[in-house]
């Protein structure tokens, strides 16, 4: 008896096998959920979806009609929608003195506006209660230099989570975020070319290891299941790093130039 038996779940941002979305998809499938996976790159989603017997769809979180189509597809294919996880993200890093309007708008469109519209379109198709989940970030709580665009939008999305919890609660829909720390994933792979970056992070983590995409999947599973009486919360799965801080650039030593823009 899987912990998500009988549930239909949409996961957005699952085009790379090393992503949080793909790890969540694998975990949900193992727990008995029926899945609809989506991302901008259909080829990538198909590769993740196929071994799981999941439906694969192209979806750009910045296009509301894509989101509506995604929610409709889940209902058409599986007769309902119970869980929706938003793992779509874009890495934007630049100090304020260098950040461009385009970078700021991109982060807001994907992380803030995208999350709000994702909730809106998914909740519309949740006729029997459900669980909405989005991925926040340690950077929304720590204050790492170079992350105004990324973390500002993520923090904004967390406030959307709290308000969505208020608005959708009466329909039995809980809304929560998961905040991982620096996690080895499709989006961050480039940072691992410089081993001192990960090492500098581990020093700030009480549990002395980086988080993994599986940690994210485990937290998502709990939030998705009927076992969690939480709503409007940001689940901090940073291994305790929010008790400390993010490392400085000096500590990361020889770090990649923070302007490296790397989309998932």
């Amino acid at each position, binding site marked *: 008896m899987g912990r998500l038996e009988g549930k239909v779940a949409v996961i957005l941002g699952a085009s790379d096998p090393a992503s949080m979305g793909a790890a969540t998809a694998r975990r949900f499938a193992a727990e008995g959920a029926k899945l609809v996976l989506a991302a901008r790159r259909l080829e990538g989603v198909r590769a993740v979806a196929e071994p799981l017997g999941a439906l694969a769809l192209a979806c750009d979180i910045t296009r509301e009609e894509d989101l509506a189509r995604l929610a409709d597809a889940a209902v058409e294919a599986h007769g309902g929608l119970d869980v929706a996880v938003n793992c779509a993200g874009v890495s934007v890093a630049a100090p304020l003195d260098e950040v461009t309007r385009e970078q700021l708008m991109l982060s807001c469109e994907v992380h803030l506006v995208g999350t709000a519209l994702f909730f809106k379109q998914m909740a519309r198709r949740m006729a029997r209660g459900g669980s909405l989940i989005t991925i926040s970030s340690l950077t929304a709580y720590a204050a790492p230099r170079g992350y105004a665009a990324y973390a500002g939008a993520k923090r904004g999305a967390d406030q959307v989570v709290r308000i969505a919890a208020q608005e959708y609660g009466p329909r039995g829909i809980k809304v929560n975020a998961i905040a991982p720390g620096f996690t080895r994933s499709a989006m961050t792979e480039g940072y691992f070319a410089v081993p001192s970056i990960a090492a500098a992070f581990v020093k700030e983590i009480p*549990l002395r290891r980086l988080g993994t995409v599986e940690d994210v999947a485990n937290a998502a599973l709990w939030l998705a299941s009927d076992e969690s009486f939480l709503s409007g919360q940001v689940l901090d799965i940073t291994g305790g790093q929010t008790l400390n801080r993010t490392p400085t650039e000096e500590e990361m030593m020889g770090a990649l130039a923070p302007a490296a823009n790397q989309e998932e």
Partner: protein
Amino acid sequence: MGAQMTGLAPSFHFMQTQTDKIVLLCTDGGCEGKRDMSRLAGKVASIVGAAGKGNIGQAIARRFAQEGAKVVVSGRREAPLAELAAEIDGDWVLCDFTSKASIDRMLDTVVERHGRVDVAVNSTGWGLLVPTHETTEAQLDAMLALQFKGPFFWLQKLVQVMAPTGGSIIQISSATAVIMLDNHAAYMGTKAGIDHVIRTVANEYGHLGIRANSIAPGLTETPMTADAMKSRALVEEFRKCYPLGRIGTPEDVAAAAVFLASDECFMTGQVLQVNGGLTLRRNPRACELEAAMRDAGEGGVA
């Protein structure tokens, strides 16, 4: 009972329990599969505050046992502890949580008998409701002893006991450690205080593989709240404060405790708000409760 289900590995059996929950039993040690319902298999869990019939500690004890843990329940009264221990095939040790010596002795006994402590839960508490300006020195001393000094020395002992193996520490806090409830200052202040100590423990002992977190329920039907919750008007006033439209149950807390206790959880130093979104709002004010009970023709206790 024990009927094999088709479509699953033959080593798994279903068993119906008294609570009608389906428990998956593993018979050949192959539990690391995807379909585990023995999420705490092989763990030794110590739960303090489990003597009150139907309280949160008891719900956690039952759930942990269903998930495969060896559970040792503690509290001040022998009879209910022995009864619960027998029901869940666990063990019991007396403990007065206001006494450092008693806490040390209890945890030493658990280690002596079961080898270690993987998970420890403090579910003790005293739900004192009294106006702040009327709170006596005796009341505050008693509150501090149970809700601050006891947990502090419990944490102090636990980090020593858990140092060789790591473990998960779970403190039952309260939504009122962050949101207001009238006439509850001594309770709320001590709960908030120990949450901060939990964060300290998480930060200082995380490198030993020790995680420490709190769970913050809202109003929950337990022996501690039973008297107040006889008023339907009062319960309804509280219910309206919950975005998810219902108040919590001891089982909600137990489900969260399983998550925090399991190896699946990369959280530490956190307070999990297991209260259906209550902290986005607030509890009813005392005057609102009084009015609602008056309107319903119920005697005022708030």
